[in-house]
């Protein structure tokens, strides 16, 4: 009887200590573990972020370096949004920063240009998010950015829609200039997915009727 009580108590203690373990196991399923975003940080940073849970590291610490695994549940759990949308949106800041940096490198700083940005994505809500992310990032960097999106005529769009992506964007770029939608001091940046099966954003620049792929 005593052995049984001892085993039950010890099991309870062990289970209690494992409640904070983020890895999949007895108390946490694989699905739940996948919905966590974890990063390894120093004990000092962990204390700054979570002063209640993590004690302040001793000032004169010696010996082994202690670090912490900081995990937070994803706002949108796996499967709540389409996988491609989730992939594009979860890395939006990083992707947009990379593409904008690539675009700036392609365009001379003088004379100052007016930037127009639009995104082409099957889901309109996601397309708007991508375009807004790019515009805001560029404006924050100090570029002159317009909220106006250059539009082509319905006939142009009907023709462009039947062309493969590699041809449609350069053609659209030429039409922007032909129609007088974009002047010499304007540059258009388009962000898109080229193949519906991929989750990586591509981008291109249109200036003076010339289309340049950035990625």
């Amino acid at each position, binding site marked *: 009887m005593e052995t049984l*009580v001892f085993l039950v108590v010890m099991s309870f203690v062990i289970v209690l200590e494992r409640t904070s373990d983020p890895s999949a196991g007895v108390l946490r399923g694989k699905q739940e573990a996948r919905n966590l*975003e974890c990063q390894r940080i120093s004990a000092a940073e962990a204390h700054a*972020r979570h002063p209640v849970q993590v004690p302040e590291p001793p000032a004169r610490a010696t010996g082994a370096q202690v670090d912490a695994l900081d995990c*937070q549940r994803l706002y949108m759990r796996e499967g709540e949004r389409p996988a491609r949308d989730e992939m594009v949106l979860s890395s939006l800041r990083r992707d947009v920063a990379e593409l904008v940096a690539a675009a700036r490198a392609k365009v001379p700083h003088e004379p100052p240009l*007016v930037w127009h940005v639009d995104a082409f994505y099957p889901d309109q809500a996601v397309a708007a*998010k991508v375009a807004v992310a790019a515009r805001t990032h560029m*404006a924050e960097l100090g570029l002159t950015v317009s909220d*106006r999106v250059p539009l082509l*005529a319905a006939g142009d769009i009907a023709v462009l829609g039947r062309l493969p992506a590699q041809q449609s964007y350069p053609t659209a770029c030429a039409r922007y200039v032909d129609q007088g939608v974009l002047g010499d001091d304007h540059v258009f940046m388009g962000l898109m997915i080229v193949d519906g099966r991929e989750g990586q954003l591509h981008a291109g620049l249109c200036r003076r009727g010339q289309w340049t792929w950035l990625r």
Partner: protein
Amino acid sequence: MAAVKRAAVLWASAATLLLSLQARGDNQAFDAVDRAQVETLRADVASEIQLQAYDLLDELVFAWNEQPPFNADTPVVLADVSVPVGFGSGLQALIETHFASLIVKNPRSHVLLAHCPQCTAVVVRSGAKGTVISRGSQEPQTLAQAGASTGSRHALFLDFEVEGASLVLRARITRLDADLLIVHAKVLSTSSGTPALLRSEERLKSANEARQEYLDALRGRSVLAVPLHIGVRTYAPGGNTVGAPAFVWLSGGVEASLTQKRAWLGRFTVGATWSPELHVGWMAQARALRLLSGSESSLTSPDIYGFIGGSVISIYGKNAAIFQDDLPNLANLISAAQGNDPQAVFAAFAVGLEIRVKNRIGIGAFLETLPTMTNANAIGEYLDVGLFAFQSLGVEASLCF
């Protein structure tokens, strides 16, 4: 506790699912339950997103207070508030309301909100290039007209998006003219794993200042506290007709948090009991408390602690007779009449639960085993668990200073 809750929810969900399937016998039942669970989960997540969104708006308006986007008070049309993909208009309405409240209470930002019903309306415009159907906020001419009618020449767009475990706010102000140039832009993001700071709208602070206030509040919870308890101990009646009286105890002492998270507490108290003509007694008691309701104590919700402890109790007076091995007999009563009251000294080991609110007020209940009282005929057992029996039951209320 979390695992137990999760298991309970899973069992409840499984039971509901089975019942639904039996009742309807088709896949529609599964869809309904599934949708209900997703909605519950979404509501839970939305409440967190709402707090984080408020936090980002606070940060944005605080930045505008420090560095206003305009030199003078400027009417601005709130053209669009977009919420993360997958969330609905409820969250949008909450964000709009909070933002409007912030702007009204922070005139130093020099931003005056103007009403713009056209911005959210669906607009149809036909021209040489074709017909365009869009929301007003996406239509330059509609924005320009809205600006003209409200006297505003600027439109504000707030865009929230979930990116992994972070919420990102992208705010931009656009000048309402033919070019729609963006005159101000700011991107703010919640840092991963940091709780919302919940600043006061009237006196916005920087994130660092708000965080310092939070840390100060935490430090306010000293490692040591002084608890005062008032409690009642009852003893199970034995096989005899003489029932044990209830003892009212008043005790105080010191309590120390043994961990940063206040998950383990140690407490030492001394107490006294007195009943006119019947008894006087003292007690020394030590307890170890373990937090059961989470991994750290909460400033906002009650905490549940489980505890074990030991005490030494001394009772002097007529009521001490019940703790003696023999029942009170005539000799004892005569001895008492002569002024020689009986005395009992014994040990007790307790196990119990305590609910604490804000680490200040608590109520608890406990069972005690009295290992030396197995032969006291006046005392029975409340609960026999095999290895030992609990003869005493107590409740207590406590205040911590």
